[in-house]
């Protein structure tokens, strides 16, 4: 049974750029919450520490990689971010 987390995730499809160990990777945000997000793209080579640039929001958030598969990665933000109600 999946335990619903207190922090709600919002499904989306937004572009983001991830920087890790000096390398840049363009990917898509699949879902996002105040504490983290799930990205899809060429993310397999990312290091442990990342910085995510949300292009639409003009926001830059540092984070750590929580889990990873070949095409997807889960990120924990180092600080909570505010999400609009829209």
């Amino acid at each position, binding site marked *: 049974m999946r335990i619903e987390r207190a922090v709600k995730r919002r499904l989306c499809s937004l572009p983001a750029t991830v920087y*890790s*160990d*000096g*390398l840049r990777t363009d990917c898509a945000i699949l879902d996002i919450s105040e504490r983290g997000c799930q990205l899809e793209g060429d993310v*397999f*080579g*990312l*290091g*442990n520490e990342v910085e995510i640039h949300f292009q639409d929001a003009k926001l830059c958030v540092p984070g*750590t*990689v*929580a*889990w*990873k*598969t*070949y*095409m997807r*990665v*889960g990120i924990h933000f180092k600080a909570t971010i505010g999400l609009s109600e829209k």
Partner: protein
Amino acid sequence: MLVLLTDTSEIARRTCEVLGTSGAIRQINLKQAPPLLTDSVEGWIFAADLDQEGTVTAGIRHLRERALEQPLIVVTARRDVKTSARASALGATRVHEISNAAGLLRDPIFANRFMAMPSPFSNDPVLMAAIAGTVAIVTETMTGRATTSASEDLNTAIDAAIASLQTKGVAAWLKALEAVHSPTYRHVLQVLAFAVSFGTLTKLPPPLLRKLAAASLLHDIGKAKLPVEILNRADRTAPGDDAILQTHVKLGFEMLRAYGERDFDILDAVLHHHEYMDGSGYPHRMKGAQIRPLTRMLTIANHYANLIEQRPSRPVRTKQDAYKRLQAMGHKLDLGLVATFKGVVR
């Protein structure tokens, strides 16, 4: 029991290395008088230099004890008319060249023996065939036969191992590995199992999964060039042991390159499977993104296999305990991949 007749030749030495994984074998020196064999003998292996004067005579003297139904495998350096004639004179049932270690291990005398091991999975021919195939490949690589990821034998063994691990699971594979005696061979086959399951879980595309499997089978190939005393020492605390052991990654890389390995991912994984994300590994102290993702996966599978390995110097670890220790390595490993690896441990 199998009886292995040997002398001091290179053929004898290499045969002993190859058969080290095949269970209880009574080794008898041809120069000694034939001993009294009290246990029931299933078959005979003759591994001595047939070119040496007196070897055939000594062999015939020992083989007087052999019953007609007991097979005799003769291991030779090459297959020519003279050697074949001498093998026939001994009464050989089958002749194998030592350069083809896989062929020797696939001989029914060993295959049957392997299947007869007391394992709850011994009645699973698919699983046991997959393990026997990979044991044969590891034996070949560890005894110096040139093997690359392009080798047909290696690819057949990898396909069988992947199919078997994806259908039967890691637990069945690990249980069946109890039949493999050599710790070095068992380690390689454990790493293969963890790597393939890990690759499947991370949804690696099939070509990359096969590369990871090949790299895990070949990752310790350099240990074939290290002194056996150091590899088999339970407590490797002697001064200089670590430095010698650390050379196995470069040795393996050089061996594979000399054999003609062209796959960069595999060469990189063999050379760098002891590098850490924080730059504290060896041989090149690489950091973060400098380490390729397949290599990071192999590092995790290799570490986990080392952690669950039974050693006389420490109590047996549960898989959960071993995983906690893996997590405790923190930023040395790829944190995202370690989190995903939890699915392999379950």
